[in-house]
């Protein structure tokens, strides 16, 4: 089921004018920021389909930048996000693409700073609800419905078992899990959605596991 809560239908409370093009866009930006783990210094945002055609009218641009500044859908500061970003020294660029994407409201968000960069593809599926469909080249499906752990690791035997053991030892239940890799034996990504909120202890434990290279989190 694409929608699970009544508040995805009666909600979100948001700054207008469009739930898919403003609120959903803000959420895509905010999830990107969350996964990156810090304020990016620069952003390149590629827009597809209806996003590319109508982003100016819907405030999709100010909403995505607002999301990258960690603003929620109802944060009035969305309206001044361009100025706020400039004040923080964040540079950004919007590139409307002609090419058709799988979903009409698609944004490819590339963000970075001196320490690294990240690329995320988000789709806004309606009513302010979004999904992440790609992260750093890995196809995935992340709804943002649940708190999630994203673990980048080397594709070796036993890594998945050790990660799930650590989660189980915290008494936590896995709601949904996906594993993907780009090439056999190379870099792989685990996406784990859990029922309860996790804490720093678990994240540090996961980071210390052999063959785990990066742990990102997404709070619900």
């Amino acid at each position, binding site marked *: 089921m694409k*929608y699970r809560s009544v508040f995805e239908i009666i909600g979100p409370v948001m700054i207008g004018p*469009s739930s898919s093009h403003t609120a959903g866009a803000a959420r895509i930006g905010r999830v990107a920021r969350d996964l990156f783990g810090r304020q990016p210094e620069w952003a390149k945002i590629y827009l597809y389909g209806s996003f590319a055609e109508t982003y100016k009218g819907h405030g999709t641009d100010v909403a995505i930048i607002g999301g990258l500044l960690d603003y929620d859908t109802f944060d009035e500061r969305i309206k001044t996000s361009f100025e706020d970003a400039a004040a923080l020294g964040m540079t950004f660029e919007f590139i409307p693409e002609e090419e058709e994407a799988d979903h009409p409201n698609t944004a490819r968000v590339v963000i970075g700073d001196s320490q690294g960069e990240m690329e995320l593809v988000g789709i806004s*599926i309606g009513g302010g609800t979004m999904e992440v469909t790609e992260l750093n080249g890995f196809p995935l499906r992340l709804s943002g419905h649940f708190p999630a752990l994203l673990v980048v690791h080397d594709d070796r035997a036993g890594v998945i078992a050790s990660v799930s053991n650590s989660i189980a030892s915290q008494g936590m239940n896995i709601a949904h899990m996906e594993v993907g890799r780009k090439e056999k034996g190379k870099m792989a990504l685990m996406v784990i959605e859990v029922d309860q909120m996790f804490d720093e202890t678990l994240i540090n434990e996961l980071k210390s596991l052999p063959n785990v290279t990066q742990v990102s989190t997404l709070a619900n």
Partner: protein
Amino acid sequence: MEVLFGTVKELVALAESQNKPISEIMIEQEVLITRRSREEIIAQMDNNLTVMESAVEQGLQGVKSTSGLTGGDAVLIQNYIKSGKSLSGDLILDAVSKAVATNEVNAAMGMICATPTAGAAGIVPGTLFAVKEKLNPTREQMVNYLFTSGAFGFVVANNASISGAAGGCQAETGSAASMAAAAIVEMAGGTPQQSAEAFSIVMKNMLGLVCDPVAGLVEVPCVKRNAMGAAKALVGADMALAGVVSRIPTDEVIEAMHRIGQTMPSALRETAKGGLAATPTGKRLEAEIFGKDKTVRDTVNS
């Protein structure tokens, strides 16, 4: 995922067999799925109701969007009602003006609650605050109005679509008006099945409605589609309460909406390339608002 209902048929059957209103089934499902407490869920919906109330009040004071395309119509309609000359009835026009008020606030980048989307955010609160004047509901009944709307919207969102880019305006104002009709029936004391009939009657009259926003802005024709959506919701609710039924069952009407949306050309699904957006005046307004760059790019595309 374990849910209590996935179709309107299941929703109505559950409400009738347990002798509970649809709003109650929605609350129970929310508790089951999110594992949050009933109090927390009701408090969040109460907060959404407050946001809706503020948006209506703000719109009735008169607002203007940045583009200048919309704003001020809610005030005009309220003044007309006060003149005592209305032909279609004060309650309908009150709902229309309150729906318009909400969407004018939305277009002005004000704070609203999406129901089920921002572009269609006027219909559910517009009808609620108009019907309130006649039925004098308690705060709890008003919150339940939103849960009942949400229950029907939940089925549409999962079995069809609530996105204009995916399914056209029928998926947005069409869904909102049908959801509102179902909620009005419950507030007026109708049965769960009558709520479903009201939903069907309204949705059948929204089928095929395209999404063609001028300049890509959620203003023209969105604000007036909310106005008419509110009017249709009230008429549909009255028809169902009078005992009129839909020959096509609700879930099949929803399925028809879904299929129509899938076959709608992309020019008519929120790309601002067809319909009213592509009229000479629509294009002129777009050029005036966004300047030459956008016009040149569109000429290249077409």
